[in-house]
């Protein structure tokens, strides 16, 4: 089930919302959420919902074991078993085809490539389970005694299939003690509507442009055309994914949960390190906490771990070499920035740091887009201008100009809202101003959100199938 669909919004969510608020007690509400989450997952994965429950059961039992035998060897066995099985499932479902293909290519053999369909959201709920196991082992959280409460955490449908990766500690207390206020529901609804709008109004229409130029052979695409399209693709990924996160956070809040932010206006960064502190925060913080600081190479070795983290970050995004290159590409720049040092970089001209970081990020999204290495090669030749010399590609062309004119307001709007304008407005209306200003802001926000919901719903009529990019992870 896709968030940005009329079916989800106006049938599934409407029913769940009513059922949730008809129930008076928290345990009843939790039961509603568990059932809703399993139905939500089973709707897309009628078979693999069993694996989700199995994964929950396994990690729940192991965590209980860890709690009981923490100081003993058996505790470590439980940690190893849980993480080992979690990773094994992830490897089987997500990477087995990729691994076999590469073994075949390397050894020139013909092992049949397994055709396994990856259960949606496996990367997300597996990482949540791993974080829970490690947190239990480190005594950051207490193992949950009740299975259904742990199942609720792992399967909670707002964040189940495309994140953010919610730590157990974030909602541990709210599973049993959450007070849902009108403000929570109102703010959550607004946040979710903004997320839907980001996806439906901005991301989908940006992708239409991207697909026009990147959707087929790009060997003859002009220099400006390549830059134009990859810039729009970067914006598309941001609005698509952050839109999903907004919906997840918003829905969570409507049900009384407060998830952590997953994006913090990444395009205002001045370095690659800062970009990753603002982009997919739940993933980068996962790798920071559970991999980067781990003594994997005998003792914490900063640089080896750094490249391991970025290898895994790339790999997490997909079973394809371009994702691994994409991860390591960022790893290299973060390594260089680490060598230079934050203090020195802060002294750099702010315009230059913005230009530097944006160029690296935008080219990075080109690597992210092209899973086909031939097309990726053309991308580099085009974006560097080399194909103008070697292949006679044009500097610009009429299609780009035409596309820009036909989408100029959309693009300007997308760039504007990728900057922290909304937080500034929120600060003005809801924090800085007096009650009158607050009232004006709140009424205005309500009207805007209703308008966005109606516009998005109308646009959704034209999108019979409309999945989010991060569903494939």
């Amino acid at each position, binding site marked *: *089930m*896709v968030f940005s*669909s*009329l*079916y*989800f919004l*106006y*049938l599934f969510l409407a029913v769940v919302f009513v059922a949730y608020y008809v129930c008076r007690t928290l345990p009843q509400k939790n039961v509603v959420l568990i059932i809703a989450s399993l139905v939500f997952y*089973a*709707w*897309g*994965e*009628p*078979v693999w919902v069993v694996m989700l429950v199995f994964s929950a059961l396994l990690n729940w039992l192991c965590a209980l074991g860890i709690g009981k035998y923490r100081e003993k060897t058996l505790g470590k066995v439980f940690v190893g078993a849980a993480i080992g099985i979690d990773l094994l499932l992830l490897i089987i479902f997500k990477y087995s085809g990729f691994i076999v293909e590469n073994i075949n290519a390397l050894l020139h053999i013909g092992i049949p490539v397994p055709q396994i369909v990856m259960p949606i959201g496996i990367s997300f709920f597996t990482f949540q389970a791993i974080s829970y196991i490690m947190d239990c082992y480190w005594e950051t959280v207490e193992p949950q005694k009740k299975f259904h409460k742990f199942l609720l955490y792992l399967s909670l449908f707002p964040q189940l299939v495309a994140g953010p990766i919610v730590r157990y500690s974030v909602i541990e207390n709210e599973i049993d003690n959450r007070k849902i206020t*009108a*403000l929570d*529901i*109102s*703010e959550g609804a607004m946040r979710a509507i903004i997320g839907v709008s980001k996806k439906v109004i901005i991301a*989908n*229409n940006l*992708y239409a*442009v991207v697909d*026009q*130029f990147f*959707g*087929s*052979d790009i060997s*003859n695409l002009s220099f400006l055309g390549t830059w134009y399209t990859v810039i729009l693709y970067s914006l598309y990924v941001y609005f698509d994914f952050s839109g999903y996160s907004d919906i997840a956070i918003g829905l969570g809040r409507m049900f009384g949960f407060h998830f952590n932010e997953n994006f913090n206006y990444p395009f205002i960064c001045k370095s690659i390190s800062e970009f990753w502190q603002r982009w997919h925060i739940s993933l980068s913080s996962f790798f920071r906490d559970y991999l980067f600081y781990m003594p994997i190479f005998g003792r914490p070795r900063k640089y080896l771990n750094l490249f391991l983290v970025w290898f895994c970050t790339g790999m997490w995004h997909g079973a394809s070499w371009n994702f691994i290159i994409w991860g390591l590409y960022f790893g290299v720049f973060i390594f260089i920035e680490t060598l230079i040092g934050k203090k020195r970089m802060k002294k750099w001209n702010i315009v230059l740091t913005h230009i530097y970081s944006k160029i690296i990020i935008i080219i990075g999204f080109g690597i992210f887009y092209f899973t086909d290495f031939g097309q990726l090669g053309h991308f580099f030749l085009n974006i560097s201008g080399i194909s103008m010399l070697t292949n006679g590609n044009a500097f610009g*062309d*009429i*299609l780009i100009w*035409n596309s820009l*004119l*036909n*989408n*100029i*307001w*959309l693009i300007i709007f997308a760039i504007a809202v990728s900057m922290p304008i909304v937080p500034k407005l929120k600060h003005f209306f809801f924090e800085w101003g*007096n*009650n*009158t200003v*607050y*009232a004006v802001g*709140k009424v205005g926000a*309500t009207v805007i*959100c*209703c308008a966005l*919901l*109606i*516009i998005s719903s*109308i646009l959704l*009529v*034209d*999108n*019979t*199938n*409309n*999945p989010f*990019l991060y569903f494939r992870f």
Partner: protein
Amino acid sequence: MEDNEKKPQQKQAVRGKHVKKDFNHMKRKNVEHGFAVISLMVMIPVFFGISLFLFVFPRSTVSNIEKRKLATFPEFSFEDYFSGKFTADIATYYDDTVPFRDDFKTAGYNFKGLFGIHTEEEVKVVGKPIAVVNKDKDESSKPSEASKPEQQTSANAADPGKPQESETASEAASQTESSSGEVQTFDGEYTVENGIIVVKEEGHYRALELFGGGTGNAYVNALNNINKDLGGKVQVYSMIAPLASEYYTPTSYSEYTASQKECFDSIASRLDDGIISVDIDTPLGQHVTEDIYLRTDHHWTPLGAYYAAQTFASAAKVDFKDLSTYKKEEIPDFVGTMYAFTGDANIKNDPEVFTYYKPDNVDSTRAYYYDTAFNYEGDGNFFNGVGDPSSAYLVFMGGDEQIVKVKTNVKNGKRLMIVKDSYGNAIPGYLFGAYEEIYVADMRYFQPNLIDFVQQNKVNDLLFAMVVYSAVGGNADNLETLRTQNKGQTIVDAAP
């Protein structure tokens, strides 16, 4: 007393002042809570209002914009359930059959029209045009191979630029409805494979499919084989219609559309000597100032077909009547398929008049309709009424699928068979005065063996009439199938 009387008023005034003052000094939490409640009192009715609207109102079953039947509620099977297809199809059904779907779709297109700047010489590009001029042209540059009915009417075909394509919608979408259903479906040969440009000329919008080029090898081979099989006893004609982009593409976009004339010449040069190639590119080019192509549709106008038929009649040396002898009929407010292909609200807002011409002997002709296997279904008129203006092209025989035999009042013993795509639908009416019988069969649906059919029905002239995308695209593969399929069967004409 006065003092006593004043006191309550003073108190009230003081209280009023406090109330006024209180709003700005109320505890912020109370204000937040209060406005959160107000906000919810607005948002919840909007949300549940939409929910109820979608749930309660009658669901759409057909999209006139997209020219397709909408998804139906899936039948349950364990196989479908465990594969996830059943649940996915339910979601597709719900999303696809929104009440007043076409109206909302139009509203969506209008909203998207706000994304850009609109100039007098504006051109909107849809799809993925590839520069084709001065590049090597081969089969790889030709348009989509999609041609069979089940591939023709998908939601995606009408929705360029989607993030992901919907398999389920394609499966759910159905094919041509009969003339009574008034659903004019897309033809498989017309895709947005090399893109569409929407140009504004003299105050009107015109959508142009760009031509990606192609060799037409399958077309040439099939026609040569058919000609050989017929052993010279039947005169074979090849008449390929150009797309409107041949004549109306702005110079600045000319590199994105290949020369169709060159393509036709190349095909003609490779056809056997016995086959007569009817060049209609040149005569149509002499009438570009007239309305020979529909601006909002992927077809030519009946007037364009008239000039093509005139050229054919000249090549076939048969009688041909001047346009002045025809009865002119008009269907106003026609908006064709290009609206759905481009999603451009300008097309929707700039309808045209669909003009067609009935020959003077139309009342003395009878059209006999057969299914695709040539089982007789009934007789009627060649020209049909259409309810919805957007289905105006269905005026000819009610659509593509059926095999049609027209008996005219001409008694010259001449029989013509037209193997065509939908471009060919507009041709037969102009030849009612030239042939005693005219058979019309669509290359995509015709099931009998073509050679047997031609021979057993004593056809004299066999005309292949189709648009260039059919000749160089996947539809051409059907021609060889027509020649080889169901060989040796007796063709039984059950018509009275």
